[in-house]
């Protein structure tokens, strides 16, 4: 375990090592460790998962298995703005599909494509944000928007684009 850390190439893994240390390299803390890593990189790079596995003394397959099991872990980079539309029961009944359609159109996404080529936006659906009283709901990074209509969704998108000078 020591060796793996020592040979880790410099700065890139510095943060990962810090995260591992903060969790006492406790293998039962694998999920929070991966959460912290993802917070840092916005996804789970393969080489980081390998480093985590060696540091915790578990097979890389186990780390990979956990990373693919939970929907919050991303094995590919996401856009700067992650837009999540709730498709829980309440939101579904109140028309969340129209929001998906509107934003897919607005972002030129569809099918398997979830992230725009410029890496600015990722569009996902989630199965309930717990803001059902405000259905349909959508979240941009951490900001919750309630009672969103397709027009409002596009407005929010345009607002972000303006703030990014796009």
């Amino acid at each position, binding site marked *: 375990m020591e060796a793996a850390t020592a040979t880790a190439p410099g700065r890139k893994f510095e943060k990962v090592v810090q995260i591992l240390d903060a969790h006492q390299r406790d*293998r*039962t*803390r*694998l*999920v*929070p460790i*991966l*959460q912290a890593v993802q917070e840092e990189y916005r996804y789970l790079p393969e080489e980081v998962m390998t480093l985590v596995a060696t540091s915790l003394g578990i097979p890389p397959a*186990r780390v990979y*298995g*956990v990373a693919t*099991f*939970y*929907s*919050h*872990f991303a094995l590919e980079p996401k856009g700067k703005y992650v837009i999540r539309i709730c*498709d*829980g*029961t*309440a939101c*579904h*009944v*109140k028309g969340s599909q129209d929001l998906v359609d509107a934003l897919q159109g607005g972002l030129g996404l569809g099918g398997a494509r979830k992230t725009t080529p410029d890496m600015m936006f990722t569009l996902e659906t*989630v*199965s*309930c*944000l*717990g*803001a*059902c*009283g*405000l*259905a349909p*709901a959508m979240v941009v990074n*951490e*900001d*919750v*928007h*309630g*009672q969103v209509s397709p027009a409002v969704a596009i407005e929010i998108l345009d607002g972000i684009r303006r703030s990014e000078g796009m």
Partner: protein
Amino acid sequence: MMEDLETVGSAYLEASRRHARRIVVCAGTGCMANGAMKVLAALRDEAGAHGLDLETELRFEETRERDGLLTRSGCQGFCQMGPLVSVEPDGILYCKVRPADVPEIVRETLLGGKAVDRLLYRDPATGDACRGREQIPFYALQDRTVLKACGTLDPEDVREYVAHGGYQSAAKAFRQMTPEAVCKEILESGLRGRGGGGFPTGRKWELARIQAEPRKYIVCNGDEGDPGAFMDRSVMEGNPHAVLEGMMIAARAVGAQEGYVYVRAEYPLAVARVRRAVADAEALGLLGDDLFGTGLPFRVHVMEGAGAFVCGEETALLASIEGQRGMPMPKPPFPAQSGLFGKPTIINNVETLATVPLILARGAAAFKAVGTAGSPGTKTFALTGHVANTGLIEVPFGTTLRHIVHEVGGGVTAKDGSADPAGFKAVQIGGPSGGCLTKAHLDLPMDFDNLTRIGAMVGSGGLVVMNQDTCMVQVAKFFMQFTQNESCGKCVPCREGTRQMLALLEDIVEGRATEETLPLLETLARNVKLGALCGLGKTAPNPVLSTLEHFRDEYEAHVTRKVCPSRVCKALMTPAIEASLCKGCTLCARKCPVGAIAGERKAPHAIDPGKCIRCGACVDACKFNAITGA
């Protein structure tokens, strides 16, 4: 060393008496999404500009009289009307407050002592303005017990919780009661788990208590993965100390030293509030190495989920805490016998734990006096869908659906949100594990046993009201899509069975179903129910079986007549001619094999839906794209 609860409490009350007013801004997820924090900031600035002396954080050491305390609360349940601002002792509740409304509130209410009429809730039935909660039917018709402190207390101030009697029940459990007595009190109260199954909490605790193993755990299940449910979120955000106190009492009852709160990652505010509550309780010496001077330790960790619905299932949740894929394990052994790291573990739902301190404070008999004989107490529900007042509600078990939908909920609404008194079609209860209630069930007293009897279940307590525009097959398909996505894949009946069921439902809504589809769907549903390993698979067929039972004619219309009676399924839509596009070329009428199209030359044609067999020939024939549907 723990500070004396009485000292903390009376110091808080003393300090709060210095304030002429108390202004509470709701800081639950819903109101924050609608800009509650901007309203709070505007109130602070505007009051300051008028020379009002508001305190935003109650300070013990101060003695100066102040004009008011500006504070926040957790979700008050009426999110749709948010942001909410209440002013006490004036008894005023303002709805949909915008920062622009703040100058008027400061001028009229804080300086003038009058209510701002236009910001009050209006009873839609009478049109009268309601000054405070007592006059608002949504609140007046409920029995808010577990949720009472949610929406009045500052969830980030442990001292306020203590001042209102908080942690007294835990102190009693540790100082005056034996573990056996705690278990007995909870058993006698008849409390049943609010996480869905309704298992008697006292029985579960007793089973863990009698295990010889010295290390034991308490886990609070705050996963709340059911789409359409948010009561656990609101309790964790609005009254996190009640949850911790419940865990402490459970720890006393079974002899546990460590606990986990497992919160789903979609709830960042709940995570933050629970973390803060743990830190504050530790700082006061309430949690730690010596609980209430007994020398007994209890520590609590907070763990964030990572987005897997199946992790709400107790054995999967434990695997997740242990750092593994969250897959369920066969039971027995039950977690109470062998759970986290192989040790006896109590897993309880958030609401269950938040109810426990109330039982110890008031006694089992008082708890049993509310609700029904088999299901004592109250239940929180997330009321959503086509209903006027969506939000978080709490009513005694045994309340009828009619009361909830038509009284508390203010009645059914149409697509555009307007009132639709005759629009009631069904209520889906219990999410992907639950079933549908229909007009026939409007007067059924709702409790664990009555709901199970009719093939539904309390589940987590999501209540989705559906109006006549809802297609029940689509509803069933929606839930099947959900469980199919969320199946962990460990066992074949669930992994493959839900996939096939979903495919059959797709056949139905796409118009491909044959006379074999429905019997096949039913057989498959029964087998998945029997063969699946965990509750996810075992209950996944419920929405299908329940809609098949209560809305069979709707399924049959899809299958045999290829019609969607609610006009939702696009593939089955009756074709219609858009008059503005129709040139009256008569081509479609000539192509129609059954003569369903009529019209004058050069004038818009029309389709007789009674004759049409939805062959689609007219749609293909029309050169002007004037025919939609089919």
